[in-house]
């Protein structure tokens, strides 16, 4: 399961760089990252602000393109894929949990969770029970008809988790998933993610500063100034 054994690789990055150009300024967000992540890992990327955590997750999640280097997902070189192919791959294999939840405000919790399946073109008869099951799994079975503005921060993040998992992805990417939550709610969310990771062998990669979350991870990647300064395997 673990990448350090060199087997069952989900993500493989080789000398990946990302350079942003803002007017005259050139910012090297990632300066040559090489990284391997296996199926079922529960990985945290941590580091100070501006260290490149979010950029790294964006590249892994195929919502941004590396400037150079090789990036493979499930053995497929993703930099050579077209935009449509990347969209399909994101929809099928990756779930996103955003810091700001990013739920669609005009849709109910249930409709938000069904969304990735409907983007895929699943019929309502298949999407509905899958979404209901995920919402029940995150403890929101009684709130399925509520719109996001009627839900608390923790409930919204649970909906976001249910939405990320409804397609049964190989990978869930979470950018600061507990940043906007109080301690109790944050702990519940961490426990939930851990439980889903163990129960369904779903790989979780998240960026965080949250020590409560770091205590739960299998693997910690320390990122500083766009470079991996160290890695620690906890289990």
């Amino acid at each position: 399961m673990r990448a350090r054994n060199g087997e069952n690789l989900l993500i493989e990055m080789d000398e990946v760089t990302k350079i942003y150009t803002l007017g005259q300024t050139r910012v090297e967000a990632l300066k040559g990252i090489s990284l391997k992540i296996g199926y079922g890992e529960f990985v945290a990327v941590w580091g100070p602000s501006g260290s490149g955590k979010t950029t790294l997750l964006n590249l892994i999640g195929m919502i941004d393109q590396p400037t150079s280097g090789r990036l493979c997902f499930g053995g497929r070189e993703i930099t050579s894929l077209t935009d449509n192919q990347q969209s399909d791959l994101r929809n099928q294999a990756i779930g996103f949990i955003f810091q700001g939840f990013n739920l669609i405000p005009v849709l109910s919790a249930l409709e938000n969770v069904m969304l990735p399946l409907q983007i895929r073109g699943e019929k309502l008869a298949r999407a509905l029970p899958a979404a209901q099951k995920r919402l029940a799994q995150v403890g929101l079975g009684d709130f399925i008809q509520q719109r996001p503005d009627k839900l608390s921060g923790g409930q919204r993040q649970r909906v976001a988790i249910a939405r990320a998992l409804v397609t049964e992805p190989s990978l869930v990417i979470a950018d600061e998933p507990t940043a906007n939550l109080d301690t109790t709610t944050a702990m519940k969310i961490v426990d939930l993610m851990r439980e889903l990771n163990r129960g369904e062998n779903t790989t979780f990669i998240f960026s965080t500063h949250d020590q409560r979350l770091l205590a739960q991870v299998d693997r910690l990647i320390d990122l500083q100034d766009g470079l991996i300064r160290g890695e620690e395997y906890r289990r």
Partner: protein
Amino acid sequence: MRTWFKIALRNLKKNRRRSLITLLAIALGFASVCLFGGFTQYMYDANQEAAIYGRALGHLTVFKQGFLEQGQLDPARYLLTTEEIESIRGICTANPQVVMVTPQLQISGLVSNGKISTIFIAHGLVPSSIDAFMNGMKLFKFLEFEGRKLEDDSPYGVAVAKGLAKLLGLKVGSNAVVLSTTVDGQTNALDMEVFQLLNVDTEFLNNKVMRVPLAFAQQLYDTRGADRMVVLLDRTENTEPVFKQLRTAMQELGLGVEIKTWKQLSQWYQKVRDMFDLIFLFLFVIVFVIVVMSVVNTMSMAVLERTREIGTLRALGLKRRGVLLMFGIESSFLGVFGCGVGLLLTFMVRAWVNFAQPTWTPPGISASVPLKIILLPSYMVSSGIALVALCVLASLLPALRGSRQNIVDALGHV
């Protein structure tokens, strides 16, 4: 698909003020196009009626070959003889679409009340055929007359345009004299009695026009012939096919005649049509600009406000064309609802027109006519489809901009 419809509808509802303003712009545009289209159709139909029935052109007119070019210079040579009239009548009446075929002779000369003389042009037709023409007048009913009908048995009883009657001080029952040259160039004069005072559809002819029995016209020109045979059909739509059938039949018989449709003879109709087509185009361009600007503005705002949403959906796997579809659906709803409200407005205005029955005097016409709006369902449906398509197309520009945004930038949009 249902989800995208839901998102579109709920977003429109969420931004109800903005949606309402755009919707009203579309509704007013649609109603303008429908109402003006309905008025244009009324003008087409009324002018068609005026040409076929009011001016007694009929649907088809048969002339001797060359009459239209040389007939004025040598009338004797280009009149249809009685034999030719009967042959044409025989061919025409054999066609089931023909309801009437009648000879006519147009004359001109001087008319005098004994003190004043003035020029006239007169239409000589068979009095018993006049009803068939007048019954076809449904929209421009101003051609009604004062006095009594012309009669086959009273060849000296004539109809005089009101303007001409006023000029000569003639009333119903007055007598006057007409003077002209016969087809052989001899001077001829006839007494006449005013049976009718006519409204005519062309203002500049109001002081010149008379309608006389064919026998009167023939007597004045000293001929038994006619310069044309007018053919009236059961339906105007049958003009072209019957035109071809009759032309073939007459050519086969070697009659030496030419046949013209009412459209070929009525340049006025074509000019009116061209003018209204141009005005309609102008109006449609204005509506086009208003609708496009409203929709582009609304959709640009929507794309801007929902940039994070676009980023989220793209991250979840929605393709660029999915973003276009999402805003396209929203825009098409605006178009459909706008056209729905516009349709309601159209019916309300038409109901008012039917109730109030306003009249107006078209340019060049000597009497006021009722204003009508003739709504054609096929035209309204095609206008509606065109407007909805326009709305969708107008949304593409902002939606395209939204769909091409970098996902990370879109997610970070505040």
